[in-house]
């Protein structure tokens, strides 16, 4: 099969690139407009601004009218949200509509979607004089409540506390929606300014997946989006805090039935170009799948946990391990995790382990091509990390070329940096 890039690229203006994938595979059309900025500064303002976007634009004011508009488009959707990678902060507009070809009367649902996105960008209600400012306070309360409520999801809370501690003092320690205090005090004028700057100055990656030709998509974008030129996407190297000489373990107590363990291992001398594929492959063998060593040993053999898994984060070179277990077993699980990491470093895994991990990665890469959102996510991730291989088959070949000694070498360099234990009240 011909391995052309999944997306064709079209420069609409300087720093504004359309990535286009045409296929009649789907019954919907997907659009993503990602503004890419720095991972620090204005985070809380952008985050609150994302909430303000949902109140519509000059001609379609109010959440109810926006909602009705998309119900009329047969349940299409449009959202604005913020997210973060190791190096970037993203303001993301995501939209999706059913392809009009499958609907009565064959309406041009996609053009209606882009029309809305364009109006949101150029004339959002919050920039109009008649905007009801009390909506900002409502949204601020909503966001603060959501931030406070994170503690109710124990696994997510444990991961977040680990990250905050491991990357203390670095932008990565700031949650994607900003610090609580910053959200509580962000001023309306600062929010509008931050969004303006973001929308006008930051590079934009636009994605389209659906049945339309690139020229048809470009014509619609030109009619409604009209994004001006700006600087191109810049990729800065990630510089995190130094790895600790001695791992730090910290504990918190809550009224819970099950303890949560979160461990962060940093990769010493991490070089993305060399280490990314061995680390990902090793992670799949170590704890990243239901056939991994951790799953088989900690869960299936010793019955110590229902959930245990690891994940390698390529932007920062960090291996995360999380588990839920009885507090009496926390030490035992910690010891088993360390033991398996050591055995990976010693190259103690079978050919079958490697083959299974490769098969799992292949499945994940291939199946991403059945989902417009996954395809876009995969490609956008490649763009933001400077990865040149953006076709799944090429990426898979990189994984297949990883030798057992490459995996062992990477695991030898993983240093335990931080451990978080969330334990029941004494």
């Amino acid at each position, binding site marked *: 099969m011909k391995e052309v890039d999944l997306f064709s690229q079209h420069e609409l203006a300087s720093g504004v690139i359309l990535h286009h994938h045409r296929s009649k595979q789907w019954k919907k059309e997907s659009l993503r407009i990602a503004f890419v900025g720095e991972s620090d500064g204005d985070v809380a303002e952008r985050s609150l601004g994302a909430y303000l976007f949902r109140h519509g634009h000059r001609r379609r004011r109010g959440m109810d009218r926006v909602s009705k508009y*998309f119900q009329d488009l047969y*349940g299409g959707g449009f959202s604005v949200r913020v997210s973060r990678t190791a190096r970037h902060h993203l303001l993301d507009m995501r939209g999706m509509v059913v392809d009009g070809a499958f609907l009565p009367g064959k309406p041009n649902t996609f053009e209606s979607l882009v029309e809305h996105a364009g109006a949101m960008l150029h004339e959002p209600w919050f920039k109009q004089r008649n905007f009801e400012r009390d909506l900002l306070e409502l949204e601020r309360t909503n966001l603060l409540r959501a931030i406070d409520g994170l503690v*109710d999801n124990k696994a997510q809370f444990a991961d977040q506390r680990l990250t905050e501690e491991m990357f203390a003092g670095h932008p990565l320690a700031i949650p994607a929606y900003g610090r609580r205090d910053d959200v509580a005090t962000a001023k309306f004028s600062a929010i509008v300014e931050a969004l303006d700057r973001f929308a006008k100055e930051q590079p934009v990656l636009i994605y389209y997946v659906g049945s339309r030709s690139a020229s048809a998509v470009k014509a619609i974008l030109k009619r409604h989006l009209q994004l001006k030129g700006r600087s191109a996407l810049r990729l800065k190297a990630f510089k995190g805090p130094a790895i600790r000489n001695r791992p730090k373990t910290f504990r918190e107590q809550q009224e819970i039935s099950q303890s949560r363990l979160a461990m962060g291992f940093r990769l010493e001398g991490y070089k993305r170009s060399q280490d990314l594929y061995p680390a990902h492959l090793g992670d799949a063998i170590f704890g990243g799948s239901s056939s991994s060593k951790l799953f088989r040993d900690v869960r299936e053999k010793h019955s110590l946990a229902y959930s245990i898994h690891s994940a390698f984060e390529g932007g920062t070179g960090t291996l995360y391990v999380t588990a*839920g277990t009885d507090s009496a077993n926390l030490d035992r699980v910690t010891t088993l995790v360390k033991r398996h990491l050591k055995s990976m470093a010693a190259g103690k895994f079978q050919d079958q382990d490697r083959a299974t991990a490769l*098969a799992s990665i*292949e499945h994940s890469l291939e199946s991403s091509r059945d989902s417009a959102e996954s395809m876009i996510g995969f490609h956008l991730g490649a763009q933001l990390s400077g990865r040149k291989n953006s076709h799944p088959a090429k990426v898979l070949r990189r994984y297949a070329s990883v030798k057992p000694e490459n995996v062992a070498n990477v695991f030898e360099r993983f240093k335990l940096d931080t451990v978080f234990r969330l334990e029941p009240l004494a």
Partner: protein
Amino acid sequence: MSRRKGKMPSFQTQSKFGDHIESTVLDCGLPVMVVPKRDFRKTYALIGVNYGSINNHFKTSIAKGKQRVPDGIAHFLEHKMFEKKDGDVMEKFSQLGCSSNAMTSFNHTGYLFETTGPPEVGLELLVDFVTRPYFTEELVQKEKGIIGEEIKMYLDDPSWRGFMGVLEDLYPGHPLSIDIAGSLESIAEIKASDLQLCYDAFYTPPNMHLAVAGPIDPKTVAEIAERVIHRNGKDAPVATENFAAKVRRKPLKRRRKVLSPVTNQKLYLGIKILADELPNVDPVDLEIALDIFLGAALGRSAPLYQELFRNGALDDSFGYSAYSEREYAFVMLSGDSPDAEALDRALCKGLTRCLDEGLATADLRRQRRKSFGELVRSYDSMSSLCWNLIECHAKGVDFAAYGDRVKALSNARIMEIARAALRPDRFSAHYLIPNRG
């Protein structure tokens, strides 16, 4: 048993939105539904069993007398199906490059795998492991630790606690009020012989369904399923009858406050629906009618939602779901609020007003469009397709006709069904209140 060798079942074909739904019933009684999707890389296959946590009291032709089995056994059985004498099935799937999983609900158990490689071997493995159990006391004991941790994980999940809290008041004494996974005490009682009994009583081909979507030939699916089921000797008929627990008409309590380790106050508001109050409404029409009614009454475009949002009574965590099954039906509303009790009162009052005064024709029309669009989009997802096929089949309804049903339900009929289903004396609320001062 005599077999009609070489004779393949004929498929009924229905075309929807450019796809074809192929259905048949195998000689062994297993209903099979396939949606060939040549443009997709992934094949998704799902075996559903009409058996869940509520089937804990039954009579079966393979055992004497009434059977009352420990709570949580359907979920326990689902876990144990993956272990065989020759090793772990999940690992075998992984070695084939497939990913596999399973889930248990109140009335259903589902086993699935997906692959982007040739699907035939994975499909054979799926049908084989679901129709060939292997239970030993040693393996049962080992699983108790894992499931015990799963139970504890859910104990720390406020949304699950709130959801179950409402069901405890809506269905006291009924198995719906019992956690799907059971409790640490109930799973301690489970023995290998209990698992075998439940397996033999419920895992029979006519009580199961197979749905497959992806680049695969329907005849291949039927051939593999028929051959493996016959090889495993699963085609002997078994008659099993559930003893339906008595359902109280009114909830045990209208409202209950529970001090809980949560950050924000949380409201869970349930509405019990009784089938005998809904003559001539099947579960799918009920589901469609409630989806459209609730969307128009409580969705983001609804005046009630806007009013409550604007005065800060609810936020993005607010949501609603309608559960419409053959055995039960209820609606659940939930969300965080600075004052859960006030939100409860406002929602009940607002819903009653919508039921009494009716909803605008345009609002119902828009919700109908939305439901139709969601149905079209579901054909893009192999997993949604398979689950929809199986859930509709379990309710005795043809999934291919779902879109026509959405179009056919008139606004007047939607309101009629909603009024009969959502009765004020069937409401019960659970408030989780932060226990820190």
